[in-house]
């Protein structure tokens, strides 16, 4: 490029945020130390279900360092909002959400009952033990299916049979007819078990009340600081929106857990005002996090898949019980409906798809979006179903998939599950896709044609080998506001994005984003994009974010939306910058704006390239404003708000290869192949990192991770001693490949990749294990595939055949 700037867009540039992260110089919530800061600790219910008869805080108030003890009745604010109901004009959502602190009852172990504010964290924690809560314990229910049955323990008066909602999508009559008339029908019960997210950084907040201005500042380890300001102001506290400022410092991982509005955010606000405006910090312990930060997944599903003996699938019917926990989290009902029920047909052209989803209350921690949010659950259902169908008709699993893929010429494709919901008369289509090339690459890389030989060889070593496919599609890059705002859908808020770009006098650029990094490398990717757009070095750019004061409103980062939606907002702001720069360059060069061409950071007169100005020269002159044409304003400062016209649709094929010790059931993942189409890539290294992490999480669910509750609602997997997070040494090197089908939805052609790995991988591993066990006559085994589970399946099969 003429300005000597290397074009970094598409390059595996090292991340600009990493030096501080890997040298301990990141500034996370707990690193923030403010003058006069005090500490808050929360007393949490030891019972999964109980009425609160009384709370006696007198002894705690007298303990050393204690400034205040707070109980639920002290706080006049509203319960937390539930902002994404199961949608549809006839769907009733029976809503119960947490109060800031519980008042008359608790619905899960970990629900907050009282809080202590003290000079030190140790003093606050010690004082918790001195609070006397008189509980009336009640029976508990933890299983979502059982909770809806007659006679089950009832949690909420407004939710008979513990039903949050009954929601349906698709053509019931058509689907039931297709199933009734089909040559082959396979039915299976599937469990997508509960997970406990484990971001490296747990959650925390600092509340700071300013008595002089009656304003609040809340630091929060959050994915959505702007949204939290809105929710805390308009729904919880009634404090005017402009009097709350929310700031997210460096966030050390989230995976969805930090999207939501939590009680502790309001609690630290209340506490700071209570202690006269001293900053109040709360940081959860990991153990506390297991009970007080959202869990993921937890579906019980009955699937029916029907079709012809030649492999064509004609109908899929799904009934799912979605466990939502003791009270609803911010978007709990949205995940198993919009983000799951509407994408059940996956990448297949199944003509009849119908789903019923029942959201259920149980005495467990609330459930909400966790990496993939509904799409891993949908992928698991349809990919298991395709394997079961293939096995039933004796057809190769890859061939069945191929036969049912949406063909490339069928796009834009109107998904029969109902994603194409009419909004203001417009439909949302799956815009693009070409699934076979990815499948072919994966099959070759995995040696799929050699499967029989591989199995035979493994058998000589006492191992059962299995290969599992997952041909997935995912919907991300959320979302067009007109779709979110459709009747019944959406979380009372939109999903556009914003960016502001200022080119300062010395040519240095500050870009803001309304998205919110939690480790994805956004500071790098935005810099790469703007460096490319404006033709300036990455070093001349910084990216500011995460402070509701001084950055335009944005909807945060989740749903793999930053690359598609956030980046495009930044590009549109850059376009405005370049347009103004071009017009001012014309003024400086005494030419017509139409005669100015932009090459990198140079604005030249066409035909006379020696007549040029750089962006830096233009900014300097514009920012001074000594000579402005017409009604042009000084400064080079542009803001863009951008609403995406569609979601994006990454897809791909993953293949997992496992070996099972036939004697003990121990299951090892020996190879993992992933071919993904995430469109064009801003930074291929970051894309690989996202895939690695997502794949590891999905494998973790299939093989190791599971949240275990006793029947009394006690969380038995209450720490990392019992909840098996994957270690890097347990995983093979992932073999990654790609196809690239640029997204037509945004100028970069990107689709987003934050969740794709997690969406595909659980199904791939599950299909691999089930493939390994198939020869023993075992049709289906639920996850996680612990040694005991697999052993038991093998024993049952051998017993049945004996």
């Amino acid at each position: 490029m003429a300005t000597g700037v290397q074009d970094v867009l598409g390059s595996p540039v090292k991340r600009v945020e990493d030096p501080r992260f890997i040298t301990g110089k990141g500034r996370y919530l707990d690193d923030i130390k403010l003058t006069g800061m005090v500490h808050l600790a929360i007393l949490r219910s030891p019972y999964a279900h109980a009425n609160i008869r009384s709370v006696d805080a007198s002894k705690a108030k007298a303990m050393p360092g204690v400034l205040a003890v707070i109980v639920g009745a002290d706080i006049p604010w509203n319960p937390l909002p539930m902002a994404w109901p199961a949608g549809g004009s006839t769907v009733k959502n029976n809503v119960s959400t947490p109060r800031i602190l519980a008042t008359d009852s608790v619905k899960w172990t970990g629900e907050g009952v009282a809080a202590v504010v003290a000079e030190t964290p140790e003093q606050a924690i010690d004082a918790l033990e001195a609070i006397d809560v008189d509980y009336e314990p009640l029976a508990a229910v933890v299983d979502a299916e059982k909770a809806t049955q007659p006679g089950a323990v009832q949690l909420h008066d407004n939710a008979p049979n513990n039903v949050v909602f009954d929601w349906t999508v698709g053509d019931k009559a058509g689907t039931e007819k297709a199933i009734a008339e089909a040559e082959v029908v396979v039915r299976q019960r599937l469990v997508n078990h509960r997970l406990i997210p484990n971001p490296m950084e747990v959650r925390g907040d600092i509340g700071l009340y300013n008595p002089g201005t009656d304003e609040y500042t809340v630091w929060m380890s959050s994915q959505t600081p702007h949204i939290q300001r809105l929710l805390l102001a308009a729904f919880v506290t009634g404090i005017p929106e402009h009097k709350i400022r929310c700031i997210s410092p460096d966030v050390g991982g989230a995976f969805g857990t930090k999207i939501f509005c939590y009680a502790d955010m309001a609690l630290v606000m209340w506490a700071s005002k209570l202690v006269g405006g001293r900053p109040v910090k709360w940081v959860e312990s990991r153990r506390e996090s297991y009970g007080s930060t959202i869990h993921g997944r937890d579906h019980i599903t009955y699937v029916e898949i029907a079709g012809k003996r030649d492999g064509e699938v004609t109908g899929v019917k799904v009934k799912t019980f979605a466990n939502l926990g003791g009270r609803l989290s911010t978007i709990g009902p949205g995940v198993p409906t919009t983000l799951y029920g509407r994408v059940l047909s996956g990448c297949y052209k199944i003509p009849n798809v119908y789903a019923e989803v029942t959201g259920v209350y149980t005495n467990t921690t609330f459930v909400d979006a966790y990496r993939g949010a509904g799409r891993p659950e949908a992928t698991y259902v349809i990919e298991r179903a395709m394997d079961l169908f293939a096995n039933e008709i004796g057809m190769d699993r890859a061939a069945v998939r191929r036969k049912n893929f949406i063909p490339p010429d069928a796009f834009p494709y109107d998904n029969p599950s109902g994603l194409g919901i009419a909004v203001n008369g417009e439909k949302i289509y799956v815009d693009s896709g070409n699934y076979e090339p990815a499948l072919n690459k994966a099959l070759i890389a995995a040696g799929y044609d050699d499967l029989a030989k591989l199995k035979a060889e493994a058998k000589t070593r006492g191992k059962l080998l299995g290969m599992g496919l997952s041909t997935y599609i995912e919907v991300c890059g959320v979302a067009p506001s007109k779709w979110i705002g459709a009747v019944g859908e959406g979380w009372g808020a939109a999903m556009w994005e914003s960016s502001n770009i200022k080119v300062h006098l010395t040519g240095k650029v500050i870009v803001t984003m309304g998205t919110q990094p939690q480790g994805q490398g956004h500071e790098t990717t935005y810099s790469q994009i703007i460096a490319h757009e404006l033709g300036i070095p990455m070093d001349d750019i910084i990216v500011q974010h995460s402070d509701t004061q001084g950055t335009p409103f944005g909807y945060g980062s989740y749903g793999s939306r930053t690359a598609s939606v956030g980046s495009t907002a930044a590009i549109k702001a850059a376009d405005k910058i370049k347009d103004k720069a071009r017009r001012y360059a014309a003024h400086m060069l005494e030419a017509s704006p139409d005669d100015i061409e932009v090459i990198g950071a140079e604005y030249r007169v066409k035909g006379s390239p020696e007549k040029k100005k750089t962006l830096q020269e233009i900014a300097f002159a514009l920012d001074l404003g000594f000579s402005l044409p017409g009604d042009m304003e000084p400064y080079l400062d542009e803001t863009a708000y951008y609403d995406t016209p569609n979601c994006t649709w990454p897809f791909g094929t993953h293949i997992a290869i496992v070996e099972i010790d036939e004697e003990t059931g121990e299951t090892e993942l020996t190879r993992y192949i992933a071919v993904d189409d995430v469109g064009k890539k801003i930074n291929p290294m970051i894309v690989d990192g996202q895939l690695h992490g997502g794949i590891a999480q999905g494998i973790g669910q299939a093989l190791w991770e599971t949240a275990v509750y006793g029947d009394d609602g006690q969380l038995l997997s209450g720490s990392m001693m019992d909840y098996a997070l994957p270690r890097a040494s347990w995983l093979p090197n992932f073999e990654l490949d790609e196809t690239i089908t640029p997204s037509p939805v945004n100028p970069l052609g990107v689709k987003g990749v934050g969740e794709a790995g997690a969406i595909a991988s659980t199904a791939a591993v599950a299909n691999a294990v089930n493939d390994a066990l198939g020869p023993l006559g075992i049709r289906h085994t639920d996850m996680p595939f612990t040694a005991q589970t697999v052993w038991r399946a093998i024993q049952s099969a051998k017993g049945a055949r004996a």
Partner: protein
Amino acid sequence: MIPNTFDYQRASSLDEALGLVGTPGSKVIAGGMSLLPLMKLRLASPERLVDIGRLNELRGVRQLPDGRLAIGALTTYSELADSPAREYGLIRDALPDIGDVQVRNRGTVGGSVAHCDPASDLPAVLLALGADIVARSKRGEKVYPVDGFFTGAFTTALADDELVTEIRLMGPRDDAGSAFVSLSQRASGYSIVGVAAVVIKEGGSAITRAGIALTGVGEAPYRAKAAEAALLGNEGTAESIAEAAAHAIDGVTVAGDIHADSEYRAAMAVIYTRRAIEAALVRLHE
């Protein structure tokens, strides 16, 4: 995850430590790799910690005149793994998998023995080797045979005022082979089933001595004496090994938890006992 308040006293001599061990409210701490997590979870709240970590007289591995190895109680797992004890196959198998790097560098063998976690591996290794546990108190020194030392979950034969000072193992020998194999619970790494096996053929082709010990299975690590007896006099054929392994849980109430119920654990005890004996015999014949 903050412990309750506690007093702390660091002993500067063994005599000083012995004066404090067993006093009301006191708990000995060495590496702290088991005790500190318990204190942070507030499952243990001793009023006073007696830190013996600087007592160098309790460190070190030396060979006794009779050929046995004497291992100081404050020897860390890493130090033990690097010591002459590495001659033993089962030490080479078991030690690198205990805990993690930090645990291996700070956790002590004396601590492991005194703590007696039902799923810890070192006690099973010591049972299979037929070790002696040397303890001291103000009343003097006592030598406990390891067989009978581990009496229950987190319970040993130690008196309240006794400190483990040394562990004595038979010396390495050419006519022995040993191995340790285990199936672990993934999250914590603790053994669901861990089997330590030592087989000795003195003179001929028949097994004359055997030590087989299991951890993770019962209330405490134990010797599977019926399995040992079934091996004696055999050459170690596949049939005899299977027959021996079938006795792995004789008389034992098999534990169960959310990771492995008692049925699975019992089945694995037999399989892993077989595998341990097989591996020990392979080493013996090398």
